[in-house]
């Protein structure tokens, strides 16, 4: 069985530890999924279905928003994951700065 690394237990993606082909079984730090797309070494695999608009979570934190519904086992990258870094950091900054001294 091939391998992927799930960094934190709440992550909904893992990082594949070898080039992975569609149909390969993956052991993702205990969770088992079947790849439904080719996934290159170091890229992300979805561990569970991620609905459109839901957060993709890696390192225990949201790293972006699903642009479409992503099925378990799919490759997660620029084609289905939106970079919302500025939104995340600006929202936080607004919140903390607005809290008053």
């Amino acid at each position: 069985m091939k391998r992927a690394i799930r960094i934190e237990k709440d992550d909904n993606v893992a990082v594949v530890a070898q080039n992975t082909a569609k149909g390969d079984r993956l052991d993702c730090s205990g969770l088992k999924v079947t790849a439904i797309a080719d996934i290159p070494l170091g890229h992300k695999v979805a561990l569970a279905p991620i609905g459109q608009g839901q957060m993709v979570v890696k390192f225990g934190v949201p790293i972006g928003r699903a642009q479409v519904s992503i099925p378990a086992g799919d490759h997660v990258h620029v084609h289905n994951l939106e970079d919302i870094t500025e939104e995340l950091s600006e929202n936080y900054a607004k919140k903390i700065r607005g809290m008053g001294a």
Partner: protein
Amino acid sequence: MKEILAFRRPDGRIGIRNQVLVISMVSCSNTVVSRIAQATGAVPITHEFGCVEFQEDHRRTKLALVSAGTNPNVFGVLLVGLGCEQTSLADVKQAIASIGKPVEGILIQEEGGSPEAEARGVEIVRKLQEEAARQERIPCSAGGLVVGIQCGGSDWTTAVAGNTVIGAMADRVIENGGSVLMSEVMGFPGSEHIVAANAVNREVGLQVLDMVSDLRAEYVELYGQTIEEVNPTPGNRAGGITTLVEKSMGNVKKMGSSPVQGVLQLGDPIPHPGLWVVDNRAQGPDPFNVTGFAIQGANVTVFSSGRGSPVGCAVMPVIKITGNPATFRKLESITDFNAGVVVEGKPIPETGEALYGLLLEVAGGKPTKSELNGNFEYAIPREPARKKPRECCADGGV
């Protein structure tokens, strides 16, 4: 509380090495310093600065030279100058002596030339080494340890295996009462909201956000583009990184999950144990950042590299780890710890615990590969041209 055998310094800090250093005041005295070090086995610090420097650059040079001498891993120091340089040997000597450390100084022009200075220097160093050899390690709390964390020469394993394992280790250092220093602040933009949310209070959270706002503005001023415009790079994307927060998290994950106590400028004393950010913006090779930790008085740096690195430091052991098992096999002569077991299925927390175990062994005297290989770099960090100093211009008391 865990205990280690270490050297207690007159100022109360602990040292995990008992180095005798030979420090050059100016590039003109580098050769004499190197020759004294070769003859005695002492660790040399040479550099290309020390004269005809603008004020801010010179403050940095003095801070770095004084801080090398005052680092708690150092027993004693010989300073070697030419005699007419900008760096005042008397000032540097006084600053190092002020914390009760043995320090001597010689000037080539006063000793009668280079061979004469070398002979005198060898004599002084041998005497310091004899005194150092008489000092014994005593039981000290591991809570006195100050640990720098860094990565460089990254590959796909660095974020997921190397840095996550350092993060788990950092949590253990803090739980045991120690201090962890994180720098590489140019890698913060994108995850500043995560780091700030981990701050001990709102004021520190704002310090983190303000530092990153300032960094973003500085980046635009220097390069004419925003950090977001150039990141993640095409190479990052090809390697599987999709978003900036994802790239940035790969860096700050080294900090673990402890509360951030504050942002320090280079040269600021560490107010109390815990996790600290050191705002060292020097852009250059890895030793710039390692040396920043040495300046802050770190005892040791833990450095992760997917591709492998020989980096060391004149005043600290540098523990090299790799998240890539193939790199560990290929570069075991420069690598101390294989975090690549995570890629092969081992859990991150227990690998971090094992790394903490190695850290304690190194603190107790086990030599690192950097020391065995004689990697004693000390690269004074230089920042891109800064028009005005930041509010703090700590200079180590010089």
